[in-house]
Every structure is written in C-alpha cells, then in structure tokens.
C-alpha cells in the first residue's frame, strides 16, 4: 500500500512528472538558444546593412559633388539624427570638418577606398535626460582626397532587447523547472489519493459493505470515469445480491403460508367424514390452490431471472411493432370488459430490447388496467419518443393508486386492499419495473391524463 508523506515518490505519475520536467528543461534550453541566436544575429545583420547603405549614400554624394554636396547632406542628416546615425568627417590631416563628436574616436584606414568596421562608445543623452555611455557600431572610410568619413549606428536599444531576452531566459528556466516539479508533485499526490480511495472502497466492499461507493469528485477525468464504472459495477453486484436474497426471502415467506394453508385444508378433510362429493370438492380446490402456488413460484423465479439478466441479452427490435402486437392482443378483451381502448403508437421506433420480457411487461400493465378500470372507462396505450428515450404509457380511468402508495406497489407482493379480491401474484408491477430497469429505464406511476383518478404507468427505455 502507498502511504506516508513520501508515498508520492513511488508513484508512476510522479516519475512521469520528473521526466516531463527534464524534457521541458532540455526543450526550453534549445528553444531559447535558438531564439537568442535568431534575434541577436538578425539585429546585427540589420544594423550592418543600414550602415553600409548610409555609407554608400554619403560616398555617392561626395563623389558627385565633392565636399560641398556631402557637407549639407550630412549636416541635414545629423540635424534630424536619422535612425540614430552618428557622423564624423575630417580632412586627411585630421582636422574636423563637420561631425557629432569632438574628434575622430578611431584610427582611420591608411589607404583611400578602404573601409574598416569599428566599434566605439560615445557619451549620449537619453530622452529621459540622464547621460550614459552609448555603444556605437560604425564604418570608417578614407575617401579619394584622403579625407575621412565615419558613420556609426547606436546599438544601445538593440543590445537592450538582447539583454532582456537573456534575462528572461535566466529567470524563466528555473521557474519553469520548479513549476514542472510542483505540478508533478500535485499530480502524483492527486493520483495517489484517488487510487487510494478506490482501493479503500474495494476493501470495504470485500468486507461485506456493498453500499460503499468510490467518490466521484466531478473532475470528469479518467479517475472519475474509472470511479463511475466501478460504482456501476458495484450497483449491479448489489442489485444481483439483493435479488438473490429477495428471491430466497420470497420463497421462504410467501410460499410457506399458502402451502401451510393447503396442508391444513387436506389435514382437515382427512379428519372429517369423507363422502365422494366433499372429497372431490376439496381436491378441486386443492388443485386450484396448488396452481396458484406454482404461479407465484414461477413469478418469483421469473422476477429474479429478469433482475439478474444482463443487457447483453438485448437485441435491436422494432418496439412500435411489439407494442402494436400487444395492443392487438388486448383490444378485444378491453371491449369485452366494456372499456374503450385507444393505441397511439409512433411507428418504427427501434431499441435494444428483450422481445419476450418487454411484451410481458406491457401485458402486465394492460392486464392491470383492464382489471381495475370499471366498465364504461377507457384505456390508452401511447408510445412516444423524447430525445433518445422511448416512453410507453398505459393510462386508464380506474381508481388509480394514491400517491403515497405508488412506490410501495412496485415492491414484491404488495397489493392494495381493494385489489385483494382480484386474482394475481402481486408481482406484476415488480416485474414491469425489473424489465424497465433491464432496458435502462424505469417505471413511473402517475395520475392518468385520461381522468383525475386514473393511473398512468410509463416505461422509459
């Protein structure tokens, strides 16, 4: 069993979290390296091409107009400080002609036409007012008349971006690692706890408490799905167990009393005077009573069989046709009983169902309706769909079942007082409910739509 404060270290999900954290670190290091290269590299390339373009433009200005053309062009540019360029122009002897600086900060190349790439620093004033050292990247060229031209571009803004990226990488990488580890820790602790809950429930169920369920916390993840599945399984097991126990109880309680009655009757007639007429009567009654006992017995068996039947038995069939057949079977009997019968069946509704059981359940409902509805009344059979559910409703105009008794009559052998005179095993509605449950639906009893006191029994599949 996993327990103790460091149990999570031994869980699969913690190990996975650790592996993920390492992978994350390697991956982010790679990504950031690439990012760094890409940004810094492209900044430098861009600066270089700008510099060279500027230098070319100035050289062209000088070549076509000499110093007189170059000077105004440069002066104009220096005035507006186009794109942070810095200029310095001096004679071959090293005298400043025009420029942003007091003197040439770097040594010019010796021969005319040579261009040198240089870096230097100048003191500059930021827009905020503070004075700072600004790194400059520049090109210096000696022109044909030996004069020297320097063009520089400020790198400070660009380098600041690079610095920020560097800083972000340095801060983010450890934070990412720590977050990954913390995530792994919580994930693994969560998984360990959920597994533990499952294991605890199983132990309790094995110990005999079938009502225990694995907590479903609504996270809707695989643990919740597993918990739901296990719970559904436990519910099924509980149902089967209780069905078995109920069948046993039913046989014990409900067959013992009619059998005792039967025995008493035979005993009594053995003691009394025995002429052929009374003997025949007694035997006739006895056979009837035995038949009743057998019918009850069959109903009990049938009921427990239905309760333990699995859904895998169900086959796709035309429920509308099945209902129409039952309607067809009972329609004349309704008429005979002085009841009007109407069937409204939506055609061609298919569902996975057990043909025999569904027909029997529906027959039980119609049977009940015929038995309890007084002459002159009405019975209706409706088959409809709502969403994907098929609802089969049998309504009548009989006395109905008081609301307080509706749950009770679904149980075994529950017969309301005024029904005791009617033949029946008292298992009819219990069977209907079991069949409905088998089909993933339920039996609902309600007031009839046909009359204030009638009964409406709906089977949802």
């Amino acid at each position, binding site marked *: 069993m996993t327990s103790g404060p460091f149990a999570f270290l031994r869980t699969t999900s913690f190990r996975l979290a650790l592996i993920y954290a390492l992978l994350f670190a390697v991956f982010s290091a790679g990504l950031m390296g690439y990012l760094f290269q890409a940004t810094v590299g492209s900044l430098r390339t861009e600066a270089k091409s700008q510099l060279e373009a500027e230098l070319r433009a100035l050289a062209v200005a000088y070549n076509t107009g000499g110093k007189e053309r170059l000077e105004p062009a440069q002066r104009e540019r220096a005035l507006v400080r186009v794109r942070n360029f810095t200029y310095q122009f001096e004679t071959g002897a090293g005298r400043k002609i025009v420029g942003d600086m007091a003197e040439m900060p770097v040594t010019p190349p010796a021969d005319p036409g040579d261009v040198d790439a240089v870096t230097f620093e100048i003191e500059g004033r930021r827009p905020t007012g503070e004075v700072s050292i600004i790194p400059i990247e520049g090109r210096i060229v000696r022109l044909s008349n030996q004069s020297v031209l320097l063009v520089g571009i400020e790198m400070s803004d660009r380098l600041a971006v690079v610095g920020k990226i560097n800083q972000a990488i340095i801060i983010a990488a450890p934070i990412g690692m720590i977050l990954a580890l913390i995530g792994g820790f919580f994930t693994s602790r969560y998984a360990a706890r959920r597994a533990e809950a499952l294991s605890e429930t199983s132990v309790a169920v094995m110990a005999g408490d079938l009502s225990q369920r694995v907590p479903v916390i609504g996270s809707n993840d695989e643990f919740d799905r597993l918990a739901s599945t296990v719970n559904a399984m436990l519910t099924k097991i509980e149902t089967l167990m209780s069905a078995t126990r109920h069948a046993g109880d039913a046989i014990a309680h409900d067959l013992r009393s009619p059998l005792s009655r039967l025995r008493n009757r035979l005993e009594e007639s053995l003691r009394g005077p025995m002429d052929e007429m009374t003997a025949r009567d007694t035997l006739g009654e006895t056979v009837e009573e035995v038949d009743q006992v057998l019918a009850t017995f069959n109903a009990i068996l049938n009921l427990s069989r239905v309760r333990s039947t699995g859904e895998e038995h169900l086959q796709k069939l035309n429920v509308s046709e099945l209902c129409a*057949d039952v309607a067809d*079977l*009972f329609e004349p009997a309704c*008429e005979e009983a002085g009841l009007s019968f109407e069937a409204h069946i939506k055609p061609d509704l298919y569902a996975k169902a057990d043909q025999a059981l569904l*027909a*029997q359940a529906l*027959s039980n409902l119609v*049977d009940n309706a015929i038995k309890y509805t007084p002459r002159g009344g009405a019975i209706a059979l409706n088959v409809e769909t709502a969403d994907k559910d098929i609802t089969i409703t049998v309504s009548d105009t009989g006395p109905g079942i008081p609301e307080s008794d509706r749950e009770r009559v679904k149980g075994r052998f529950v017969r309301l007082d005024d029904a005791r005179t009617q033949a029946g095993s008292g298992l009819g509605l219990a069977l209907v409910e079991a069949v409905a449950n088998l089909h993933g639906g339920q039996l609902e009893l309600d007031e009839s739509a046909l009359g204030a006191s009638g009964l409406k029994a709906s089977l949802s599949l």
Partner: protein
Amino acid sequence: MRVLVIEDDLEQSGFIKNVLTGAGHDVVTAENGEAGLEEARGGYFDALVVDRMLPRKPGLKLVQEFRDSGGTTPALFLSALSDVDNRVEGLQAGADDYLAKPFAPEELIARVEALGRRQVSNEPPVTKLKVGDLEMDLLSRNVTRGDTKIDLQPREFKLLEYLMRHAGQTVTRTMLLEGVWNYHFDPQTNVIDVHISRLRAKIDKEFDKQLLQTVRGAGYCLTA
C-alpha cells in the same frame, strides 16, 4: 397414437402414461436417456415425450442424436426449465414443442396430439385448408364458408389458420398464444377467449352448424 415417454421420475412417467392412455393413446415408457434413444430408434412411434434431465444421456443430446441419425418422429420436451432461452435450446436440438413442468393434463394431451398431426400433414405443401364447408386459400388469403365470403383481420386469419391446421383436435389457449402471437407467458385476462368469440361471430354466427367448439377446461376445437 403410439407415444414413447422418456422420463426417469417414475411417478411423473406414471402420471403421463395415465393421462395419455386416458385420452386413448398407447404409451411405452423408458427410464433413462440411452434406453430411450434405443427404443425411439427401434420401435415405430407417432410422438416422443422427452424429459430434459435424464440419467445417462440428457434429453437435449438424446433428441440431437436421434435427429442426426435420421429420426423424424416429432418430439416434445418436458422440462422444469421454462425460460425462453431453455425453450429455444430445446427447439434447436430438434424438438418440435416444449412444455414446462408442471402442466395441466389437457395441455399435454393437446400438444402430443398436435405433434402426431404434424407428421402426417408436413408432406405435401398445403395451399388450401378445408374444414367442413369452411375453406381457406393460403395464397389468395380468401376465406369462404359455403358461398359466403368471410372478411378477416390479419390476426384473425392467423388464428383461424392455426385452428384449421389443427382441425379435429383440441387446441389450448397457451398453444394459441404461442402459435399465433408467439408469446410464452400467460396474460391473466382471458384475452384468447375474446379473440375466439370474435372469430366465432364471423365464421359460425350466420350458420346452422357450429364448427368452432369450446372444450371445457382445455381449450378449443375446430371440427366439421
């Protein structure tokens, strides 16, 4: 009819023998599966009544082997296993009918007699059924009695067809529910009686001779 009853419970087999003998049939009994199979292969019988749980050879196997070796005698399974699935198993093994224990004597008689009938009538393909002056054409689905044409609902037609195919013999309500509606349960309301009386109103009401008789305590019989 000559009937072979294969049943290991002597009391039960004695009861079956009495019931069938009482209805005018000759009954031979066998007490286990092997003896029963030998007897069935050896003697000429009109019907076999086979218990499902037999010593030495279970009923299902017995019927299967009997069919595999070319035996055509119709067979009826008797069984305490009365589930629809059990019934299907029985019929797949080669039996012609299936009756759950316990059963009413009339039910057994009616079913055994229906079996004997089946063997005789399964040779030529029938397209017309005739009972007295009542005629049914299975192809055109016309029903006439004498010169009168009778209009029947589809279900009434099936019901009458079943009765005519079993003309002269008693047909129980359960047999009708199974044969016409394919239901293997017993509705508590007497649904069959009402269907019969509707049918009777159509085929008998206007005529002097009543063809469809009620057999008290058993069922119905259509006879000329």
